[in-house]
C-alpha cells in the first residue's frame, strides 16, 4: 500500500514538472484540473455526463457479456456451433472498432441503439473467445457425474458449469470493462450529444486540455471504484472454495 501511494505521488510530481515545462496550454498542472473537476461537479454537469456514460458502459457491457458467454459456451461445447460461429468470430475480431461504430451510425442513424450496439459488437468477440476457451476446458468427469445423478439442466449450469467458467468470465469481464469504456467514449465523440466522450470531443475542438483531463480522470476514478468495490469482491467470492496459500 505504501509503495502504491509513493508511486502515485511520483506520478503527480512528474505531471507537475511536466506542466511547468510544457506550459498550461499543453499540459495544465494538477491543481487546475482538480479545480475544474470541482466546478463541473458543482454545476451538476460532471455527474450528468459521468452517469450517462456509465449507463452506456453498463448496458453494452451486460449485453456483450451475456451474448458472448452463451455463444462462447455453445461454441466450446458443440463442434457444429464452433464451425458455424468461427468465421463470424474471426471477422468480428479483426474488424476495427471505428469501422463498426461508423457502420452502426450509418445504418441505424445517430441513435442510442446504434451507439450501444456498436460498443457491444466490439466487445462481443473477446467475450466469445475467452468463454469458448473456458468451455473447452470443462471437466468431462464432472459432466458425467451430473448426468449419472440426473442433475437438472439448471443445477448443472449453476453448480457444475458456471463455477468452472468463473475464472474465464472474470477475465472477460476485467478486460471487457476497460475496453468497453474506451469505446463508449469514441462512440459518444462521434455521434452522441452528451457523455464524457462528447465533453472531451468539445474540449478537443476548443483545445481545452484541462477539460479533457478533468473528464478523463474523473471517469478513470469511477472505474477504479467499480473495480475495487464490485469486480474484486465478486472475484474473491467465486474463488472462496480454493484453499488459501498461507
Amino acid at each position, binding site marked *: 500500500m505504501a509503495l502504491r501511494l509513493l508511486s502515485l505521488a511520483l506520478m503527480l510530481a512528474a505531471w507537475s514538472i511536466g506542466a511547468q515545462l510544457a506550459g498550461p496550454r499543453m499540459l495544465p498542472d494538477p491543481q487546475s484540473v482538480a479545480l475544474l473537476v470541482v466546478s463541473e461537479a458543482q454545476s451538476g454537469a460532471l455527474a450528468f455526463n459521468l452517469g450517462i456514460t456509465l449507463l452506456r458502459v453498463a448496458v453494452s457491457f451486460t449485453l456483450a457479456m451475456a451474448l458472448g458467454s452463451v455463444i462462447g459456451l455453445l461454441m466450446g461445447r458443440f463442434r457444429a456451433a464452433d464451425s458455424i460461429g468461427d468465421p463470424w468470430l474471426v471477422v468480428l475480431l479483426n474488424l476495427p472498432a471505428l469501422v463498426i461504430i461508423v457502420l452502426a451510425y450509418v445504418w441505424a442513424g445517430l441513435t442510442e441503439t446504434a451507439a450501444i450496439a456498436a460498443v457491444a459488437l466490439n466487445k462481443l468477440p473477446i467475450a466469445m473467445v475467452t468463454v469458448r476457451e473456458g468451455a473447452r476446458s470443462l471437466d468431462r*468427469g464432472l459432466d*458425467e457425474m451430473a*448426468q*449419472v445423478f*440426473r*442433475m437438472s439442466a439448471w*443445477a448443472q449450469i449453476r*453448480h457444475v458449469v458456471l463455477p468452472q467458467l468463473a475464472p474465464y468470465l472474470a477475465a472477460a469481464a476485467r478486460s471487457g470493462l476497460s475496453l468497453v469504456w474506451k469505446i463508449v467514449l469514441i462512440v459518444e465523440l462521434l455521434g452522441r450529444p452528451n457523455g464524457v466522450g462528447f465533453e472531451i470531443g468539445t474540449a478537443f475542438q476548443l483545445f481545452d486540455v484541462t477539460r479533457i483531463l478533468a473528464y478523463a480522470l474523473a471517469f478513470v476514478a469511477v472505474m477504479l471504484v467499480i473495480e475495487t468495490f464490485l469486480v474484486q469482491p465478486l472475484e474473491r467470492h467465486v474463488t472462496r*472454495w480454493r*484453499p488459501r496459500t498461507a
Partner: protein
Amino acid sequence: MSPAGVLARLEVAIRQKAYSAATGGTLRVIDGLSFSLGKGEVGALVGPSGCGKTTLLRIIAGLDADYEGEVHLPDHGRLGMVFQEPRLLPWRTLEQNVRLAAPQVTDDELTTLFTALGLTAHRQHYPGELSLGLARRVALARAFAVNPDLLLLDEPFVSLDDALATRLRDELAELVTRRPVTTLLVTHNVEEAIALADRLFLLSPSPTRVTAELPIPNPRSKRTPEELAAFRGQIARKLMGA
C-alpha cells in the same frame, strides 16, 4: 416370470462394443457379454486390468450409448455411482455435494449417512481440504444418498493404502447390509470382491465376456475366514483355467 420380477432385476446383454482405433480399423473390447443381478444383490465383476470393465460400467450407467445390445436397469433406474476418482465439485461443501446429487435426501438420512462414514466433522468443508480417503467416502455418501435402484462402484478403493481400503470396504459392506440395494462392483481385486459381493462374475481379457458366475452362499457377515480361503482357491483355479 412376473413382469415385476423382470423389472426389478438388472439385465445386461451386450453383443458387441468396439472403439475405432486411431490407426484405423476397430478395436473390440466387449464380445457377447451377458449377466443379470437380482434385486438387492451385490454383484462383482472381476477381471484383469484393461479388460473393459470401466467401459462396461459406463454403458450400464448410460454414459456410452455406442454399443450393440440391451441393458435393463432395475426398477426406476435411479443410479448411484462411485467413480474411480471421487468427482466432487470442488466449489461446493461436502454437504452441498451430496445434496446436489440427492435433492430429496432428508436431514436425518444425511446425518445417519455422514455418521456411518465418519464425515460429520467435515460437512461444511470443501473437497480441496480433504484427503483422498475422505473424498472417496463423500463419493460413497453421495451415491447412497440418492437411494439408488442400482449402485455402481468403479474400483472405488484404488490408490488407497491397504488399511484404509479395508476399513472403507467394511463400512461399505455395512451400508449395503443395512439398506439393501442392487449393487454392481467392478474390481481387479479378488479380495475386495469376496468381501463385498453375493455373486462374482469373472471376466476374460479383452474383448471381454463373462467366463464364470460364482454365487457366494453365505451372507456377508457370516463368512468365516476358512470359507473365504476355500473360495479364493476356487476362484484362483477358475481364473487360471479361463
